[in-house]
């Protein structure tokens, strides 16, 4: 069971809850990932999307239940493995939706490298961008706690060329 120590200012938590609630409302009715071409049968395609949407709603509800808890950000929080997986997925979904909705003017490369002039952003965008960055940090903390071998082995060396092994 991952235990994460988080000390966050109540002001930022308020901002985080506000942004996550807003984005979660958007996600109640639309999935984030592309599903085009999955199935030519419209009924099956609709069932596919509805299944994804239902799973997404559950994941976002897990995330909201954690950040809306009054202990969040005040010390150590323990999350069971199932809740941690849901949190990881919800953080990804919310970050993707933030990128698609609020950060679409920022080039993908800048987002990937993090080379963004925070103070050049509009105040509203600063708010969502701060949450976008926080959710990524939280994912990193959870991953480091749950899968330390991955964090140790991941190299961000651009010269790391993929080999030819097939899946």
């Amino acid at each position, binding site marked *: 069971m991952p235990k994460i120590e988080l000390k966050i200012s109540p002001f930022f938590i308020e901002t985080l809850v506000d942004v996550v609630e807003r984005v979660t409302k958007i996600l109640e009715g639309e999935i984030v990932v*592309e599903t085009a071409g999955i199935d030519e049968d419209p009924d099956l395609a609709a069932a596919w999307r509805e299944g994804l949407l239902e799973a997404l709603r559950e994941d976002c509800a897990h995330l909201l239940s954690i950040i809306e808890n009054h202990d969040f950000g005040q010390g150590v929080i323990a999350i069971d493995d199932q809740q941690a997986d849901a949190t990881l*997925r919800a953080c990804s979904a919310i970050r993707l939706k933030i990128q698609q909705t609020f950060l679409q003017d920022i080039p993908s490369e800048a987002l990937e490298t993090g080379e963004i002039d925070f103070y050049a952003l509009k105040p509203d965008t600063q708010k969502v961008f701060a949450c976008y960055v926080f959710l990524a940090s939280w994912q990193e903390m959870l991953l480091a706690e*749950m899968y330390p071998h*991955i964090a140790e082995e991941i190299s961000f060396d651009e010269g790391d060329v993929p080999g030819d092994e097939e899946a």
Partner: protein
Amino acid sequence: MWTDAFDDNPDTEGSAATLTEVDRPWHVVVRNDPVNLMSYVVMVFQKVFGYTTAKAKQHMMEVHQLGESIVWTGEREKAENYVYILQQWQLTAMLRQADA
């Protein structure tokens, strides 16, 4: 589209073409996105496919550097299931039939 190969008359060349289409395996393809963390993508590949960290990392690097990676190949039903699970993990995953 693969259904274009189907023919109403099973005795024509179309039926042979259909068999060929049906027999060809399906790829599960994951495309790059600017949002998901490298460590997250590696974790998902390990969790979904049971890959070693090295293999999962190799696929992640293909996604990151080449724009996409074929992460699994096999029968359509299983491939569809993998695509669905990867989409639940918020990865841009899709099905693609192998070339003839």
